[in-house]
């Protein structure tokens, strides 16, 4: 099976999108940071009455921490507005290209009315790739070019 064929023909749903974790635009940064830690989530979506309006990721969290922003500020002031999204059924190759071009590590999947259906993560893409190169990747030795320092045996 050809990997390129897979990338351009299989939908992003194959790359293991995760359930969207949503908060309201008026929720505080404190609430959002705690939620991210509690769920061990790297990002969450900001939705106004169910429609995606922004995304808040680890990168944004780092910026908030470095600048010592007041943690009671509503999340909508520090989120990334109108993030790049994918539509349901778009191909894996499109997701890879969008991530690579914009330097994004997660892309929300939305339906026609802007409601989030899931989030494609870069780790899902990596896993997808590894699964599609099964022989070559699963059979790798632990060290690239092992050179024995001593001969085997007594």
């Amino acid at each position, binding site marked *: 099976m050809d990997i390129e064929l897979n990338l351009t023909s299989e939908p992003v749903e194959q790359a293991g999108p995760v359930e969207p974790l949503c908060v309201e635009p008026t929720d505080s940064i404190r609430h959002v940071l705690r939620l991210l*830690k509690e769920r061990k989530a790297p990002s969450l979506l900001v939705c106004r009455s169910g429609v995606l309006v922004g995304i808040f990721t680890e990168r944004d969290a780092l910026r908030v921490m470095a600048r010592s922003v007041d943690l009671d500020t509503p999340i909508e002031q520090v989120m990334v507005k109108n993030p790049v999204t994918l539509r349901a059924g778009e191909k894996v190759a499109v997701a890879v290209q969008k991530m690579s071009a914009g330097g994004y590590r997660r892309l929300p999947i939305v339906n026609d009315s802007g409601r989030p259906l899931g989030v494609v993560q*870069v780790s899902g893409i990596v896993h997808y*790739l590894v699964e599609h*190169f099964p022989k070559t990747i699963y*059979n790798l030795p632990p060290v*690239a*070019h092992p050179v024995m320092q001593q001969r085997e045996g007594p």
Partner: protein
Amino acid sequence: MVICPLCQAENIDGADECEQCQQPLGYLSRPRASSPLERSILKDRVFSLGPRTPLSVDAATPVAEVLRLMVDESVGCVVITRDDDMVGIFTERDALMRLNVDAADHAERPIRDFMTGSPETIELDAPIAFALHKMDVGGYRHIPVMNEGKVTGVISVRDILRHITEGLMSRKA
């Protein structure tokens, strides 16, 4: 079952040499890439991703300074050193999971209290497939690149995605 290409004798799978004619057979059972992209991630080495010179700080550096540095330099990962040896890394994820809402309270603490000690590393001349595999198994996004026992760079999952995208583009063109 492996058929010896020389004498046609049947050998068990994975046999190193033919039972009948002692011809080496090891190469027959080695995995082979089935597509150009697959071949490229096996053949191309980590150095062809152009690992970035790592941003490194001493283990005693205060947290606040490291955070500022990461934002200013737009990096997601810093290498923590002591006497020029790597002792750990500190990433965006560490910041979120270990500092979180208490970042301001920990501002003056040394970064070594929050870093990830002895991270997984990769050799500069290892195939890209190795890096991809390590990232998948460990869920990492950054791996320090070693050359002769010293850290020479950091590769991120983004570098690998770029490599794949370039591969896809050049195939279409």
